């Protein structure tokens, strides 16, 4: 059973469109991280959210941590082909210093 469920698993959009992907769990996390991964490479950390309800922006990417610290969303405004990749969310349980990952949201932005 996957601890973190990411949806949709696959999303294909045109350049310039907006998109939102989701990361949901029944567990509470002390922090949650979003990564982007290219094929055959390691995940690259995008953001860490810690406080329930927290919103962080990274250029055209907006990350939100749910009030109950069980879920998160990633919104991309005016998507660019360079945004193409696998977006992984990962939650850290309290005090265990290990990350539980979802399967990822595969995003393809078509020029």
């Amino acid at each position, binding site marked *: 059973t996957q601890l973190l469920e990411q949806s949709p698993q696959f999303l294909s959009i045109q350049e310039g469109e907006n998109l939102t992907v989701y990361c949901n769990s029944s567990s509470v996390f002390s*922090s949650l991280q979003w990564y982007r991964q290219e094929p055959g*490479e390691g995940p690259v950390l995008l953001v860490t959210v*810690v406080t329930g309800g927290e919103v962080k922006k990274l250029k055209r990417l907006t990350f939100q941590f749910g009030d109950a610290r069980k879920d998160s969303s990633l919104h991309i405004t005016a998507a660019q082909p360079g945004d193409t990749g696998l977006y992984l969310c990962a939650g850290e349980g309290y005090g265990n*210093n290990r990350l539980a990952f979802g399967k990822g949201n595969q995003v393809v932005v078509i020029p």
Partner: protein
Amino acid sequence: DAGVTQSPTHLIKTRGQHVTLRCSPISGHKSVSWYQQVLGQGPQFIFQYYEKEERGRGNFPDRFSARQFPNYSSELNVNALLLGDSALYLCASSFVQGARYEQYFGPGTRLTVT
């Protein structure tokens, strides 16, 4: 500053063989974690080491072992390789700052077992 480095980049082994993967963390990071990522899945936690001691172990068989050296680099060993061990093996180094726990991943080692 150099990021997390892993070696080798790619590896092909035969069933039943043994493999050793290596990782050097970011300078100043004392914790190293290992993950296995099978195609189409997210990374799965294998081990965490901090200051040369094992601090956590995921749901992997005893064929998997690891250690951390005084310079904080680490090795992951897998014995009696199975076809199902074919995966991208990721090493991550981390630091803890208050409530923030962030892991930085290396490029991974692609292991193929034939």
